């Protein structure tokens, strides 16, 4: 294979794997922000908690990777419902600053609690044998886990897209994002809908956190470390759209990888340059409604 093509494949492939993690973690945030306009900075903390769920289920109870992911999603999803009632609900009508302060406070608490129980050092897991090492796709070998990551991402977007576009619940969600007052006046129970979407988004983020352990690593600092990145994905994609989060994650993931590969000295510069450029042209994001 010519060198140029080889490099291109490297960049796109690694970028896609990275993008899928960004997408899975950020998509819930995009939907909840689109639905309620609630600025939930603690969303990454749900992903982080999900990651720790997976780690402790696997190393503590000896469960497999996939059952651990499922349990993490259920556990974090259920836990987020409780948090929603206690902390989020009272602030729905409050200003954005209050919401930001409350949710960033939650991140600090989660970070401190996880440090207390798991220590400040990063933790790791052993992914199943079939997902480690290299996978030969004929023309080239790829890291198996990243191939798996891309597959999971594609499955996830398909399921979520189907859910939002083709089901009644999805139609209601779209209606509320479009025009909340109109949706309420035709009898859609926005409160209930939000709770469901919130729990679902948190659960999906937990899966993302579990999947990220092997690529991004996991420490009690995770939610802070990647907070900006998740917010960028949501903002660039546009609030309340699954497609937006997906495309934004891919654009940013691939460009971040390309930047690091082609010009390592530039570091993280690219991702911000692209973000600024996109938002200058489309302030509401790629698929956001102005």
């Amino acid at each position: 294979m010519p060198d140029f093509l080889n490099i291109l494949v490297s960049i796109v492939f690694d970028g896609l794997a990275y993008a899928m993690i960004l997408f899975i973690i950020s998509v819930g945030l995009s939907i909840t922000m689109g639905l309620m306009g609630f600025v939930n900075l603690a969303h990454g903390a749900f992903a982080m908690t999900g990651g720790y769920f997976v780690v402790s289920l696997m190393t503590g109870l000896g469960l497999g990777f996939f059952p651990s992911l499922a349990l993490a999603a259920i556990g974090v999803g259920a836990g987020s419902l409780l948090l929603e009632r206690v902390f989020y609900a009272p602030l729905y009508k409050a200003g954005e600053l209050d919401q930001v302060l409350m949710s960033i406070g939650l991140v600090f608490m989660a970070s401190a609690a996880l440090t207390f129980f798991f220590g400040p050092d990063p933790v790791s897991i052993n992914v199943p044998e079939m997902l480690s090492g290299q996978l030969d796709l004929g023309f080239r070998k790829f890291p198996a886990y990243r191939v798996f990551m891309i597959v999971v991402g594609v499955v996830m977007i398909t399921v979520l897209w189907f859910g939002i576009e083709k089901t009644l619940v999805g139609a209601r969600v779209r209606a509320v994002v479009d025009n909340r007052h109109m949706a309420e006046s035709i009898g859609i129970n926005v409160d209930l809908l939000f709770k469901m979407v919130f729990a679902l988004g948190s659960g999906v983020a937990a899966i993302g956190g579990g999947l990220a352990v092997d690529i991004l690593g996991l420490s009690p600092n995770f939610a802070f470390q990647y907070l900006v990145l998740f917010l960028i994905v949501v903002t660039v994609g546009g609030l309340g759209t699954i497609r937006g989060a997906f495309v934004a994650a891919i654009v940013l993931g691939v460009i971040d990888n390309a930047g690091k590969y082609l010009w390592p000295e530039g570091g993280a510069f690219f991702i911000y340059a692209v973000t600024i450029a996109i938002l200058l042209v489309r302030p509401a994001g790629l698929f956001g409604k102005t």
Partner: protein
Amino acid sequence: MRLKSLFSAGAVALLLGVSAAGNAADVKVGVVLTFSGGAAQFGQQISRGMELYMKQHGAELGHNVELIKRDSKRPGGDIAKTAVQELITREKVDILAGFVFSPNAIASAPLVTQGKVPMIIMNAGTAWIPNLSPYIARVSFTMWQSGYPMGEYAKDTLECKTAASGYTDYPPGKDSVSAFRTGFEKAGGEIVDEIPMGGPREVPDFTPFFQRVKDAKPDCFYVFVPAGNHTTAIVKTFADLGMGDAGIKLIGPGDLTQDTKLQDMGDDAVGMITMHHYSADYDTPENQAFVKAWKAEYGEDTTPDFMGVAGWDGMAAIFHVIRTLDGDIDADAAMAALKGWKFDSPRGPIMIDPETRDIVHDVHVHEVVKSGDRLAIEVLGTIPQVKDPCKELKIGKCAE
């Protein structure tokens, strides 16, 4: 000149007279280490090494030594500098010790010059740090002591014609990579790429950087990352990308094969070659006694690593100073006592170079091997009594 030093000695004596009003024999040692966050493990290693030495040798010293610990948290330098200032002005410490990250030592250097407090560096490996103040001595290592010989070894013994380097983008990383480049090019090798891979605070996804190296197909890939959490990710990414199968050898300074992290790396680490001054697996009597005492004190499942040894050796240096000066610490006299100090460390014979106040020790070629069900370090070769090559060759800031 003479008058000036007499005068400053008088000023120090005055200062000490005030601070030592309580108990003339007590020596206060300010310890600045990372005790929280991701780098807490380093602070724990070093302070355990210090305390173990104190426990074993404290009784015979004849002076009380009080450790006053401060947390420098992160590599940025700011918190460490504040802590050093507080230790000098409020606690009036006689000696400063510790310093995990180079920026923390670099930021604190002007303060120990002004405050005239001897500073014993127990990790921070950027080569030119002792040049920053006449009151700095280092018992740990310099990045050049591993990087430079590794460059020669990679060309001459591993027979790598080309090499690429990847490094964490902060002073010791740049230092380690330029040491490797100097040694490698001098031996006739060609460096094809040098890649900065993010800052020291967080472990990045190394894949794009490593993929770039894989596509460049060098014979050797020299990696510097801070000891600790970065290292397992290095080995994993290297294996996941199949770089070993592509004929690339993973090499680096011994920070990569730190004893405390070695077992977490998995079998993918087997075959990795590093240049270093310590492994808990050394079978010398001094080291075996040290490791045994360590396990007895801190638990069978713990192990000292090069940082623990630096804590132990640093405390030995401090005891030497206290003994020589009979507990009455004067900065200039302390530095004079440290210059040329020799000690049988668990790592082997060490000395503080009288010229540079830097450590002189044996450097070994380490290979990671599988021994039973654990990973172990096998010594392939030894370069005796290596002085810091950066200062020997007077390169860049080392010449100042």
